[in-house]
C-alpha cells in the first residue's frame, strides 16, 4: 500500500512539474492589452497606406489588368485555414455559407469589385462602364480567357445574368435584391464584348450587385439538363481538373475534412509592372480545422501562415511578436455587430387570439424612455474590457464603424445611471427598495435570452443582468439552444429581449433592408407574420425608416445617400429598438515572409491575394 501511495505521489509531482513548464512559456496570458497598442506596431505597414488599384493596360490587343504594386517573386505556397466542415459546394451561385463563398470567390471574378480601401465600385472583368440614363453599358476586356483557354465574352455575361441569376437558380438573394419595384433589370448583348443593362429607375445598390461572379457558359451548359441539376453542379465531388474558372486561382484538390488546394490560373488577366502574368503564389491551401483551438495549435506549429486572433490570444501573440516570424495587424472594427434587441411586437396571434407579448410588458417595451433607460444603464466600456478582452469597440449605431455609411456624428454616451433613472421617472416608473415598478404598480421583470454555448453572449447576458439591476429591473437571463432561439425570433415571437449578433455589409447598407424594413423577414424587434391579426400600423419611426431605405436606394450620389443613412442611424439610436453594444476588432497574425500586404479595414488582409508574394527575410 505504501509503495502504491509513493508511486501515485511521484506521478502527481511529475504532472505538476509538467504543467508548470508548459505555463512558463506563456507568462503573459493574463496581460490585457489595449487595442491601440497593436496598431502602433513599428514593423507593420501603416493601415492608412493607400492601395493603388490595378489599372487596365492593353498589350497586343489584350486588355490586361495591371497591378500597381512592387514587382515580387514567383512561387511558394500560402497556407490559410477555415473553421468547420469545409466548403459545401464550389458553385458560387448556390453557396449560402461563408466558407463556400470564400472558395467560390477565389475561383470566379465578377464584372466589378469594390475598391478595398474606399468601397467604391471599380471594374474587374469589365473594362469600363458607361451610364446613359437608365442604361448601363458595360464593355468587357478583349482577349482574356477562362482557365481552359476559351475567351470570356458577352455570351457568358448574358448567360450568367439571364439564365442563372434572373431565372432564380441557386441562391436567389442577388436576384431578390435586384428587384426594383418588382421588376428585374433587362439585359441585352450589343456585340461580343458589350452588354447593356436597362433598369426601370435609378437604383443605387444596382452597380454593386454587378460584382456577382460570371459563369463560363460553355462549362455550365455541358450537361443538357444543366438547369435542372444546377443545385448539384460543381458540388464538392466534382473532379477539380474539369473545373473551368476565371479567378486568379483554380481548384487543384479537395480532400474532405482536410484541405482545399488551389493552384494559380495560368490564364489570369492580371499582370505586374514587368508584364508578367500574376498571381505570384503558386498554391493557396485552406486547411479545414474543426475549431479555434486547433487553428491556434497549427499556427504555432508553423503549419499555417495566417490566423485571426481572438481575445486573450492577442496579448500572448503580441508579447512574442518581436522574436517571431509573424506580424500582427489590427484591422479595426469588423462588419459584426453585437446587440440587445427589444421585442416591440404589438399584435395578436390569429390562432390563439392573444398578444404575442403580454400587454403589461408591451407598455414597457413600447415606451421609448424605457428603452433609452436600458441604453443608458448598459456599461459598454466594461463589456469591451471584460468580455472582448479589449478587442472590440463600443457601438451605438446600426452600421458597423468600418462601413462607408457609418454615421460619425453619433458619439454615443458612457454609462449614466442618473440619466436612466430620469428617463424612467418621466414615464411614471418608480424605484422602491432598488426595485422598479411601473405606474400601475407592476414589478418590472423581463426575460433575456441568447444562444446557449456562445460564451461571449452568455457573458454579455450576465453583465446586462447586473447593469439593469442597478436601475431596479429584474432580468431573468436564460440562454437557450440556438435553434429554439431562432424559432422564437422568426416564429413564436414570445421573447422580451435577446442578445444577438449580425454581420452587415460595410459598403451596402441596403442589404440591411431585411432587418429594417417593417415587413422584412428579419425585422427582429417587430417581426410581422401571416399569423398576425392585421390592421395594426407600424410605429411612426418604422415608417420613416422604410421611407429612408426606399429613398436612399434611389440616390446615386454618395453624399446624398449618406444623409439618408445617417438619419436612419440617428433614428435607431434615438428610438433604441435595438441597442447596439459593440463591434469586434479583427486582429490577424501573418508570417513576415508574405509581402505586398495592404491591410484594409473594409476588406481585410489578403483580399489582393493575386498580388501577394513570398520572400524570406535575409538575416
Amino acid at each position, binding site marked *: 500500500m505504501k509503495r502504491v501511495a509513493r508511486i501515485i505521489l511521484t506521478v502527481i509531482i511529475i504532472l505538476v512539474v509538467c504543467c508548470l513548464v508548459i505555463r512558463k512559456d506563456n507568462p503573459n496570458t493574463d496581460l490585457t492589452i489595449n487595442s491601440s497598442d497593436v496598431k502602433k506596431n513599428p514593423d507593420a505597414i501603416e493601415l492608412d497606406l493607400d492601395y493603388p488599384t490595378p489599372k487596365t493596360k492593353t498589350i497586343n490587343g489584350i486588355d490586361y489588368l495591371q497591378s500597381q504594386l512592387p514587382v515580387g517573386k514567383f512561387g511558394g*505556397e500560402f497556407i490559410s485555414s477555415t473553421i468547420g466542415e469545409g466548403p459545401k459546394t464550389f458553385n458560387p451561385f448556390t453557396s449560402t455559407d461563408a466558407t463556400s463563398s470564400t472558395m467560390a470567390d477565389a475561383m470566379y471574378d465578377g464584372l466589378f469589385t469594390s475598391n478595398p480601401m474606399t468601397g467604391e465600385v471599380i471594374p474587374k472583368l469589365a473594362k469600363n462602364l458607361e451610364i446613359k440614363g437608365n442604361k448601363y453599358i458595360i464593355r468587357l476586356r478583349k482577349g482574356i480567357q477562362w482557365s481552359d483557354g476559351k475567351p470570356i465574352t458577352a455570351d457568358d455575361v448574358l448567360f450568367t445574368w439571364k439564365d442563372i441569376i434572373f431565372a432564380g437558380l441557386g441562391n436567389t438573394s442577388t436576384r431578390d435584391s435586384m428587384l426594383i419595384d418588382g421588376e428585374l433589370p433587362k439585359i441585352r448583348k450589343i456585340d461580343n464584348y458589350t452588354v447593356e443593362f436597362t433598369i426601370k429607375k435609378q437604383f443605387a445598390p444596382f452597380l454593386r450587385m454587378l460584382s456577382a461572379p460570371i459563369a463560363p457558359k460553355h462549362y455550365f451548359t455541358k450537361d443538357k439538363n444543366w438547369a435542372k441539376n444546377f443545385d448539384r453542379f460543381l458540388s464538392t465531388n466534382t473532379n477539380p481538373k474539369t473545373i473551368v474558372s476565371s479567378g486568379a486561382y483554380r481548384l487543384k484538390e479537395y*480532400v474532405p475534412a482536410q484541405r482545399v488546394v488551389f493552384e494559380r490560373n495560368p490564364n489570369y488577366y492580371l499582370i505586374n509592372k514587368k508584364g508578367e502574368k500574376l498571381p505570384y503564389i503558386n498554391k493557396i491551401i485552406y486547411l479545414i480545422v474543426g475549431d479555434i483551438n486547433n487553428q491556434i495549435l497549427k499556427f504555432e506549429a508553423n503549419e499555417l501562415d495566417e490566423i485571426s486572433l481572438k481575445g486573450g490570444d492577442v496579448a500572448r501573440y503580441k508579447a512574442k511578436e518581436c522574436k517571431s516570424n509573424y506580424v500582427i495587424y489590427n484591422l479595426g472594427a469588423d462588419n459584426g455587430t453585437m446587440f440587445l434587441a427589444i421585442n416591440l411586437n404589438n399584435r395578436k396571434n390569429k390562432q390563439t387570439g392573444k398578444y404575442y407579448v403580454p400587454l403589461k410588458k408591451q407598455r414597457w417595451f413600447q415606451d421609448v424612455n424605457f428603452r433609452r433607460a436600458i441604453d443608458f444603464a448598459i456599461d459598454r466600456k466594461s463589456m469591451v474590457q471584460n468580455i472582448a478582452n479589449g478587442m472590440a469597440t463600443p457601438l451605438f449605431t446600426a452600421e458597423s464603424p468600418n462601413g462607408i455609411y457609418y454615421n460619425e456624428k453619433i458619439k454615443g454616451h458612457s454609462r449614466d445611471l442618473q440619466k436612466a433613472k430620469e428617463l424612467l421617472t418621466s414615464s411614471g416608473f418608480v424605484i422602491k427598495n432598488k426595485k422598479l415598478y411601473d405606474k400601475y404598480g407592476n414589478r418590472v421583470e423581463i426575460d433575456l435570452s441568447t444562444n446557449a454555448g456562445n460564451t461571449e453572449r452568455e457573458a454579455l447576458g450576465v453583465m446586462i443582468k447586473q447593469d439593469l439591476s442597478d436601475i431596479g429591473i429584474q432580468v431573468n437571463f436564460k440562454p437557450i439552444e440556438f435553434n429554439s432561439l431562432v424559432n422564437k425570433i422568426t416564429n413564436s415571437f414570445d421573447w422580451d429581449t435577446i442578445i444577438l449578433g449580425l454581420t452587415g455589409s460595410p459598403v451596402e447598407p441596403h442589404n440591411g433592408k431585411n432587418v429594417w424594413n417593417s415587413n422584412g423577414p428579419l425585422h427582429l424587434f417587430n417581426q410581422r407574420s401571416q399569423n398576425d391579426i392585421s390592421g395594426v400600423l407600424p410605429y411612426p419611426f418604422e415608417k420613416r425608416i422604410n421611407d429612408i431605405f426606399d429613398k436612399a436606394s434611389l440616390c446615386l450620389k454618395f453624399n446624398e445617400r449618406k444623409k439618408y443613412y445617417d438619419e436612419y442611424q440617428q433614428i435607431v439610436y434615438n428610438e433604441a429598438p435595438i441597442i447596439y453594444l459593440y463591434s469586434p476588432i479583427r486582429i490577424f497574425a501573418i508570417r513576415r515572409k508574405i509581402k505586398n500586404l495592404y491591410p484594409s479595414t473594409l476588406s481585410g488582409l489578403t483580399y489582393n491575394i493575386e498580388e501577394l508574394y513570398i520572400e524570406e527575410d535575409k538575416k
Partner: protein
Amino acid sequence: MKMWKFIFKRILQTIPLLVIVSLISFFIIRLSPVDPLAELRLNPSISQETLQKEKARLGLDKPIIVQYGLWAKSFIQGDLGVTSAGEKVSVKLAERIPNTLILTLIVIFMTWSVGVPLGILGAIYNKSKLDRILTILSSVGMAIPSFFFAILLLIFAVKSGWFPVGGLTSYNFSDLSLFGKILDISKHLVLPVTVLFTLSLAGLQRQMRANMLDVLDSDYIKFARAKGLSENKIIFKHALRNAINPMITLLGFEFAGLLSGAALTEYVFQYPGLGRLILEAVMKSDINLVMASLMIGSIMLVAGNLLADILLIITDPRVRS
C-alpha cells in the same frame, strides 16, 4: 447445417431490432428542437423563397411520420439519401470509412498483440513486481480521459515539432512519392494511435489477466499441476484456451467499435474519419447522415456479436451442444 440455421435465425432477429433503433433515433432527432435551417433563417441575405425551397428539398414540410416512411423506403432500397448540403450520403461515408478503418485496425491489432500477452504475463506472475508495474500502468491508462490525453499530446506536438498537429496527410501529400506518402501518413497516425492504444490496452490487459487468474485457480488446472504436467503445457494448452473465450465476445464488441469507437479522439486530432463527420452531422441535425451512421453502428454491433458467437462455436465445444 445447424450452424447455418443459427445464423439465419440471428439475422431474422436483427430485423425488428433495426426497425426499433431506426424509429427511436429518427424521432428523437426530429423531435429535438434542432432546426437544420436555423443558420439560414438568421442570415440577412437569404430570402424567404430560398428558405421555402430548402425546406421542400429537405422534406421538412411533411409530417414526421411521412418523413420516416420516405427515409425507410429508400433505406430498404439501398439508397441512403443525400446530406443537407446535397451530397450523397453513401459517397460521404465512403470518403471517411477507409480513414477510420486505418486508425482502428492498427489500434486493434496493436492492443491485441500486446494486451493479451501482457495479461497472461500478469496472471502467471501474479503479485510479482512485474504484475504490480503492469497494474499501475494499466490503471493510469484507464484513468486518463482520452480527450485530455489527446490534448496533452497535441501540445506536445506543437512544442516539440516532431509530429504534425492533427489531420491525416500534409498539404503537399499529393506531390509526394509513394514512400513519402506512407511516411507522411504514419507520422500523422502516431499520436491518435498512441491515445487509443493506451486506452484500450489497459482494459484489455486487465480483462485478460482476470480471466487467466480465474482459470488458473480452477480445479482442473490444479489437477494438471498435480499430474506433473509442465507449466508451459498447462498454461498454453489448457488454461489459455478457456481463458480466451470471454475475449472472443469482447472481440465482437471491438468489431462494432471499428467505425465509431474513435469519435472523440478523431475530433481532437481533427482526423478526417467517420466519427468527426457524424459528430458534425448531429450538431446540425443532418438527418440522413446521422441515420445512416446509426444504422451502420447497429448493424456492426449485431454483426460483431454474431461473429463472436460463431467464433465461440468454433473454439468452444461446450457451446456447440
